[in-house]
Structure formats: C-alpha cells, structure tokens
C-alpha cells in the first residue's frame, strides 16, 4: 500500500498544483523585488516588474540566477529576510568554486523537512522504522535534511553522521535499523564492509535506503540493492534550494517526483536559455516559490535531464525528473568528447568491477589521456594471465563503445583507492588548461 506524508497535496490534480504555484510565485516575486536588491536590479535590467507576473505562465519573463550570481553575492547578497529572522545556515562543499551559504527561516526548515518526510514515506518508511542517517551532519545539508524528515515521519532516528564504518555497522545490527540514508558511494562501501565481515544480504536488517548528493547509475543501484539486500531509492536536491528532498523516488522508481508545491521546474537549452517543451532534454532550472530567507528564482542547476508528466502508478501527480546524467560541472571534455563519470561507472559495474574507481585525465604531448583505475577483486582475479588480460581488454573495449574514445584501464591493488564517507572523489584532472 502506498503511503504519503501529505497525500492531499502530493496527489492533487494538476489544475490545483498550478493554482498553488501561481499564487505562491506572484507573492515570491513581490517578496524578492522588495527585499533582494541584487535580484531586483536583474529584473529592472530585463524590464520586468512584479506586475508582469500574474501566473506560472509568466515565469519565463524572469531573469535567471546562476552559480556565478551566488558567488558574486556571497555571503548575504541574496538574503531575503533580515538575518535575525534566520535560524540556520548550510553551505556547499565548495568543490566547484567558492562556497555557497544558504539561509533558512524556521518556516523554510519546516518545508524542507516536509519534503524529506515525503521522500521517506515514498520509500515505504513509517513511524515503525529505525532510520540511520549516515550523511554528514554539519554544514552539509544531507544529515540535517534527512534527520528532520525522519523526525516528522516519526522514525527512530540514529544520527550516526558519516564515517566510522564499523560503528555504523554496529548500530545497524544492534538497533536493527531498517532504513539507511547516505551517499550512494558510501552505501556501496558499507555493503563491501558487511560482505568482508561475512554478512549475507539476508543477515542485514536494513530494508530500504535513500541515497543522493551525487550522480549514480542504475548499475550501482543494482549493486547496492544486492549487497545490502534492500530497495535503494534516489533523492535529489541542492543546497541552493534547501537540500535533499527537492525531488524523490516513489515505489515505481521511474524518475523522481519534484515537490511542485515548493519548487517549479523548467528545462532550458543551456546555450540559448530558451525554455524547451516538456519531455525535452536540457538544463534543469528551479524556482523556489515559498522559501523566504534564500529565495532562488530561475536558478540554473547545470544538471542535464528530462521531465515527465506521465501518470505514475504510485498516485502522486507531481512532475517527475529523470536521474540527471550528472552535473554539467562533472562533465569532462576529453579529446572534444563529453564524458560523464556515471557512464564509466555503468561500464565498470556491468563488467563485474566494484563501484570504487578513479578517473585520471591528463594531457600528454597535447593529447588528452583517460585512465580508468579500478581495483582488482577476488571475483575477477585468476591465476590465468590470459584471462585477466582478456577481461581488461573487454573493459577497455566496452568503455570505447560507451564513450566513443579510447580509455586505458589500470588494475590497482584492493583498497588502494580512498573510500569516501561523503561525496566520492571520482575524477582527477591533471590537465593544465
């Protein structure tokens, strides 16, 4: 039986959703015009005033916000309320440039936690569940978001935070945890550790997991599901928009429902900035329509994906987004070809390698080189050199046919690639460009 946290809104008819969106958008634009000079200036430059925004159909008239805008306005330039009305900040890791600091009022925190609660219940969670949060706590939004959502659902929450893998396993075992929330790469690592300790999937009490904060492939999902004996659900979010829970998977697992009563999604052509028709692939753009402290309007995520309004058997009516292929920030251009780490991951897992890998890009004699480093595993190793080499060659051939460029495959000793407790570091780009 499908369970909902807020059934009335999660399953509302489309007209109702649009009505809510229009009402909130009009208010939000007024709020920003009055309180965020940085964005007001952008509107003025485009010749738009709040009077031009009467419904969600007018959204396209508004200027975009980019990561660059966030950098330029750091730290408080986009703040929508006096600092004394805020109750918390979170911040991005700053891996792709300057940190972003996001502010929250108590209402902002509440609606964010509601989104996470919806995600937990969509994954089958109830107040009977014991949910271990192995996302990092602190500035990172992962820990706080799922922690708050877990409280709202009424789960017993284990705030394990990230790291200390054997302690994670001890708590899962001793308290019989049924839900795990962390990054997919850490879930894979926990699975690996359970296996090392001699646990079979049926010995592990977990029944479901909610994993996000980095791009992961269907193959990685299969891998995690098999080693932990769980159903693995995807969750999507950005610190700029609150954190995890902007969109989440339901039992159907065909795309993630975007919480449309809080976030309006658009797909644009990243080059022309033109809004594309429903179903087209392009850059995902979000407008947060009721977050007051850090009101993002038409924020360009750099995530490339598609939206779908197809009816979902779970009963939810909110629009679904496909798993993004990866942030355009993660995309590598190697010898002029676009390469996403998630494509490489797919090939590795299909060839029986573990989800631990590193991609090293370098430039030798003006030519880009791609070195995919994977760890040798007992399952793949044999005394027969010919067989090992053949596997290596097959992997290299499969990478070539997936990416369209040649990749070198290096086999490394087990455990030689550092395990990540948060977001995995997959790419080492040594090119000095």
């Amino acid at each position: 039986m499908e369970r909902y946290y807020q059934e009335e809104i999660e399953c509302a008819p489309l007209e109702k959703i649009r009505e809510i969106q229009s009402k909130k958008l009009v208010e939000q634009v007024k709020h920003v015009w009055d309180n965020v000079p940085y964005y007001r200036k952008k509107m003025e430059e485009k010749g738009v005033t709040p009077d031009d925004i009467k419904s969600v159909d007018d959204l396209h008239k508004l200027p975009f916000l980019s990561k660059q805008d966030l950098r330029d306005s750091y730290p408080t330039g986009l703040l929508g309320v006096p600092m004394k009305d805020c109750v918390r900040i979170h911040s991005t890791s700053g891996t792709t440039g300057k940190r972003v600091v996001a502010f929250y009022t108590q209402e902002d925190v509440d609606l964010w936690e509601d989104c996470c609660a919806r995600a937990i219940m969509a994954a089958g969670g109830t107040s009977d569940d014991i949910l271990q949060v192995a996302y990092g706590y602190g500035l990172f939004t992962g820990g706080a978001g799922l922690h708050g959502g877990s409280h709202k659902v009424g789960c017993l929450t284990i705030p394990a935070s990230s790291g200390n893998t054997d302690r994670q396993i001890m708590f899962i075992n001793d308290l019989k945890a049924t839900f795990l929330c962390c990054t997919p790469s850490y879930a894979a690592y926990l699975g690996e550790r359970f296996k090392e300790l001699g646990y079979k999937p049926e010995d592990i009490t977990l029944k479901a997991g909610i994993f996000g904060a980095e791009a992961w492939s269907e193959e990685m999902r299969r891998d995690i599901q098999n080693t932990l004996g769980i159903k693995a659900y995807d969750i999507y979010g950005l610190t700029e928009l609150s954190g995890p829970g902007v969109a989440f998977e339901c039992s159907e697992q065909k795309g993630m429902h975007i919480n449309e009563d809080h976030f309006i999604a658009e797909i644009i052509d990243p080059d022309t900035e033109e809004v594309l028709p429903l179903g087209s692939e392009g850059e995902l753009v979000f407008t947060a329509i009721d977050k007051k402290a850090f009101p993002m309007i038409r924020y360009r995520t750099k995530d490339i994906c598609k939206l779908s309004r197809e009816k979902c058997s779970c009963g939810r009516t909110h629009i679904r987004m496909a798993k993004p292929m990866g942030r355009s920030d993660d995309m590598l251009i190697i010898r002029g070809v676009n390469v996403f780490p998630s494509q490489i991951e797919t090939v590795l897992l299909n060839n029986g390698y573990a989800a631990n890998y590193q991609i090293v890009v370098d430039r030798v004699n003006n030519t880009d080189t791609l070195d995919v480093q994977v760890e040798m595993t007992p399952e793949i190793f044999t005394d027969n050199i010919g067989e090992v080499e053949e596997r290596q060659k097959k992997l290299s051939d499969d990478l070539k046919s997936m990416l369209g460029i040649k990749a070198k495959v290096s086999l490394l000793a087990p455990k030689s690639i550092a395990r990540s407790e948060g977001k995995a570091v997959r790419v080492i780009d040594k090119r000095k460009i």
Partner: protein
Amino acid sequence: MSVMQISVFLENKPGTLKKMTEVLAASKISMRATSLAETKDFGIARLVVDDAMEAVNTLKEHDFVASLTPVLAVEIPDETGGLDKLLSHFSEAGVNIEYMYAFPGRGNGGQAYMIFRVADTKNAEAKLAGKGLKLLTQEEIANI
C-alpha cells in the same frame, strides 16, 4: 597428488612485491618456490609455501587479492638431462603444460623440484601414475 600454489595479484608499482614478502615474513610463512609472471600492466606472484591456507588468509587480511591453484610438484635429479627425461613422461602421457618453474631442495641430496601447472590436474596425475615420478604432497612440501 597436487600441492596448492598461491597466486597473488600485484599492482604495477615499486614496493608492491616487498609489501607482500613483508606480510608473509611477519606471519612466519616459509617459501619453498617463487615465480613472478608479469604483463605490461600488472604482475602475478606464484608461491609454494609451507602453509598455504595461513598464507592466503594473511594476505587477504592485508588487502591482497590471492587465490589458490593446484599444481604438481615433481622431484627431479639435479643432473644434465634431468628435466628432459621428466618432460618425456609428460609428452608421452599427452599432458599439456601451461607453465613451470624450478626450486632446489635443501641439503646435499642433489635433488631439485619442478612445479607444473597443467590444465586438468586430476587427469594429469592419473596419466602420469606408474611412470615412476615422485610427486610431492602438501605435507612433504611443508617439510622439505
């Protein structure tokens, strides 16, 4: 009557082999025979030791990938033509050899030993039986 050989995956970088011998030395594993097969990108160390199970467990605990492979350990007289004579038995019996390596015995007995990896160990043993070859058991290997 085969013995267990340990095959260890070695990443192609300085110090890997040393790390392996260090782990084995610390566990007081005594090596009888060693051989190193290398490719462009990685190596496989092949070892015959006094306690194969203990060695494999120790290596795995230290994050090495290691597997066990049955091989034949055959005693040969350390004299000219010794290997030739031995191989004639293999070829008469139609046993195909994948690889082989040698190790000397201890003391003054003038004995040497050859390790043979064949495709089908059981079948090869049956075919070589009655040819007067001295095949070593795991126990004998431990006590050499």
